[in-house]
């Protein structure tokens, strides 16, 4: 039974449970509602909740755990000697799954029966060509142990499916029976179902914590794995990034960090003045109509997907800068450059700076302005000498948030900055960033055994820590500032 169908059955049971529970409660008191502790609907609700929630939770947990458990048991069956040269356990396990899928296909089209399968052995029959007949392409001939593993994998998976169905239905029916039998007129159905509901709400808010834990665990776990394969010292104390497929790569983080910071610096150099002046103008000078048009339009910039900016950098800004600036000045002939990515990213983060600064400038009390005007200061003097100093912490917070945005930005740099890891001062040269390298090391064939792939997790962890520190700093600063005027 497929999980989708199973879930539907459970939901249907829960639905039936609702009406049955309601009906039973009403029947127990002979339609005299006053004798019930709660409204009849709550009796139905408890039945529905007890029928659906534990069963669905069990099903989700099982579906997550089953592949992990089965894979670890099966992969132990394959002796290390049977792993082909240059391959890894992960690749062989992928083969196992593919062969198992092929067996299913062969059974489905009738070219194989269960009885044949039991006697079939990889050293006697040509598995590879028979697999090819049903459209399953295998890279090499099948080792006997791998074929046995595939048979067991298939059997275990089938058993897992069956056990899943049985357990889910049992949990569902169990909950159903338990809840139905509990129904008495004095049963506190509303309290029970509300408590149940509250636990569901708590579980939902735990998803946020779960996500953070998931991110940290997956990053740290694989980063540790990476440092087992690649020396810690070379990652932090060398200056060259040169991944090679055969091994012997240089994987230093510094060229990437340099590129990231350089691009972000240019982006901020564009976005901070423009965003700040725009915010000042919109908050202090602009008429209501101008503000009501210009503000949302500027915010549209933040709503445009980054891939659009990336394409803009690739097809418009990059060639423009190359033909009109870089080549006449003799600074380079690459259309993807730090400058391209930085300028476009700067445009993207203008609204981050301007919106937040705008809010913060508006939060400065009017009395400060009035005091300054009363002393004879012009409007610009008031802004420069009174409002900006008062709003400074908040603006710093806004800039930090924009910086964290710039550092974590991916698509603009993937399409605009280039892929060459370099330590150079020339902004018209192609350089690369941490995010670009995460993408390039993890897309395509992801085989989690080589330092070239795993380095992406170390880079991801660096990026995560970097942006986390910036965000926390910004939040703390902004929060502290807000308290000042409350």
């Amino acid at each position, binding site marked *: 039974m497929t999980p989708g169908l199973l879930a539907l059955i459970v939901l249907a049971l829960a639905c039936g449970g609702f009406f049955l529970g309601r009906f039973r409660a009403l029947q127990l008191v002979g339609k005299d509602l006053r004798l019930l502790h709660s409204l009849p609907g709550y009796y139905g609700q408890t039945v529905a909740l007890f029928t659906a929630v534990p069963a669905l939770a069990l099903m989700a947990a099982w579906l*997550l755990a089953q592949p992990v458990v089965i894979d670890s048991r099966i992969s132990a069956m394959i002796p290390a000697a049977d792993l082909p040269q240059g391959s890894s356990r992960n690749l062989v396990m992928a083969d196992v799954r593919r062969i198992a899928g092929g067996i299913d296909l062969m059974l489905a089209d009738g070219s194989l029966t269960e009885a044949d399968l039991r006697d079939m052995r990889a050293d006697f029959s040509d598995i590879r060509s028979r697999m090819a007949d049903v459209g399953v392409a295998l890279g090499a001939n099948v080792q006997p142990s791998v074929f046995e593993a595939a048979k067991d994998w298939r059997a275990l998976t089938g058993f897992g499916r069956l056990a899943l169905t049985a357990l889910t239905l049992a949990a569902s029916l169990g909950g159903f029976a338990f809840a139905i039998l509990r129904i008495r007129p004095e049963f506190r159905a*509303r309290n029970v179902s509300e408590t149940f509901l509250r636990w569901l709400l*708590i579980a939902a808010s735990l998803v946020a914590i779960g996500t953070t834990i998931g991110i940290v665990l997956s990053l740290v776990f694989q980063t540790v794995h990476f440092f087992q394969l690649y020396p810690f010292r070379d990652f932090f104390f060398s200056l060259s990034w040169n991944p090679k497929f055969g091994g012997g790569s240089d994987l230093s983080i510094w060229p990437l960090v340099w590129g990231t910071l350089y691009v972000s610096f240019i982006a901020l150099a564009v976005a901070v003045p423009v965003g700040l002046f725009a915010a000042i103008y919109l908050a202090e*000078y602009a008429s209501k109509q101008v503000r009501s048009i210009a503000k949302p339009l500027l915010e549209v910039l933040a709503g445009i997907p980054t891939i659009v900016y990336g394409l803009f950098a690739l097809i418009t800004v990059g060639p423009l800068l190359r033909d009109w600036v870089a080549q006449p000045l003799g600074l380079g002939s690459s259309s993807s450059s730090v400058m391209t990515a930085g300028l476009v990213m700067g445009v993207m983060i203008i609204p981050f700076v301007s919106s937040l600064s705008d809010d913060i400038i508006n939060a400065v009390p009017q009395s400060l302005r009035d005091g300054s005007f009363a002393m004879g200061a012009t409007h610009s003097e008031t802004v420069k000498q009174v409002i900006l100093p008062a709003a400074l912490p908040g603006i710093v917070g806004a800039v930090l948030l924009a910086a964290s945005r710039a550092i974590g930005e991916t698509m603009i740099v*993937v399409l605009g900055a280039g892929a060459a890891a370099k330590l150079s001062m020339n902004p018209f040269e192609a350089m690369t960033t941490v995010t670009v390298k995460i993408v390039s090391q993890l897309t395509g064939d992801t085989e989690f055994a080589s330092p070239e792939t795993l380095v992406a*997790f170390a880079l991801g962890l660096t990026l995560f820590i970097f942006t986390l520190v910036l965000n926390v700093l910004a939040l703390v600063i902004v929060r502290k500032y807000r308290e000042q005027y409350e």
Partner: protein
Amino acid sequence: MTMVETSAPRSLYTADARTKARNAAEKRFRIYGITAVVIGLLALVVLLSSVLGSGLGAFRQTVLSLPITLDAKALDPKGNRDPAEMAKATTVTYAKLITKALEAVVIEQNLAPEMSTKNIGALISKEAPAGLRDMVLADPDLLGTTITYDVLASGRVDGFFKGRVTMESAALDSNITPEQLQLAEKLRDAGLLKLAFNTGFLTNPDASELRPESAGLGVAILGSIYMMVLVLCLALPIGVAASIYLEEFAPKNRFTDLIEVNVANLAAVPSIVYGILGLAAFINFAGMPQSSPLVGALVLTLMTLPRIIIPTRAALNAVPPSIREAALGVGASKTQTIFHHVLPLAVPGILTGAIIGLAQALGETAPLLLIGMVAFVKDYPGAPPEGILDPASAIPVQIYNWTQRADPAFVERASGAIIVLLVFLLVMNSLAVILRRKFERRW
């Protein structure tokens, strides 16, 4: 006193040097502000016009209207109209028919006397026969008749009429010659070749590197829709539930604080980190299939959650306490108060936040690259629910994919796809604005 007497009498209205300087500074400051706003708006205009300018071409495609005789002997040699038998006629057979039809037209009108059949045939897209074949297999009665069929022209011919390919570039191109382009021009003058609306762009799957003319967004749009529906089904209930707990039930303690800080931070975590999480947790650990809309949706759900929780909490918070007190006062329990009174009043705000969060998720690219959605997918994913496990693409990823290809025709496709994406976003955001305008209640 003496100072005043020595200086010339002057009106209060004539500014002295210092006042002038201060006023000039004031004026400059204002101009900086205006300049900044103008730069921002200009950037928006340039960005949109650049994308629109290069992308509109993707919605028009060069086609050849040819009278094609569907030779029953070639297509159904046994003559029994059995679909299985007819399926044996491959696209090669159909390609011959199309080429023959084009050649007949060329000879009849004497457009290119010396050109060989092969060179004439090169004007036609390699993808065109497949379309004709599907049409004939769907309707075997067409066999033996002569139909006027719009045949897709090759990418280079299409580029020529859109200004991407010129006679000079064709001279250096191994895929097309200037003579072939001249023939194409003559065909256009004869009314046989025209630029028509490109429905295939919205319905076709992606095509190979060499056939940009038939590449479309069909699989990507379907994949994006699958993902958005799943994200909505997952992120909205979880997000609203979490917001209700945090806003209404949670006691003020360190644990609640921890969750709140967490949500704030998750909203600012770079999206690519979610991609890494998806790769490590869903694909490698839980063994879910790569490139599937399910994994994409799970990743986007985790990413969208904080973006739904924050506006939902604001919406719940905006419901005045008097409503809660009134409900509690007439004997409702806390849960009843929230679900029967507070939540319905907060619905417009919640929906607005959810739609905007969903719009962000729709445009997100980076995390999807990591979970394998960049793979070349030519088959439509199956119908849900099983289809969510099939490989699919997504609009932003398809755009990225096309930018990585060598033929400049794909740049036009990518820009066209961006227009489609922006239209989707525009619709979603307008919906959010309308909802807010229509149902927003000020207390």
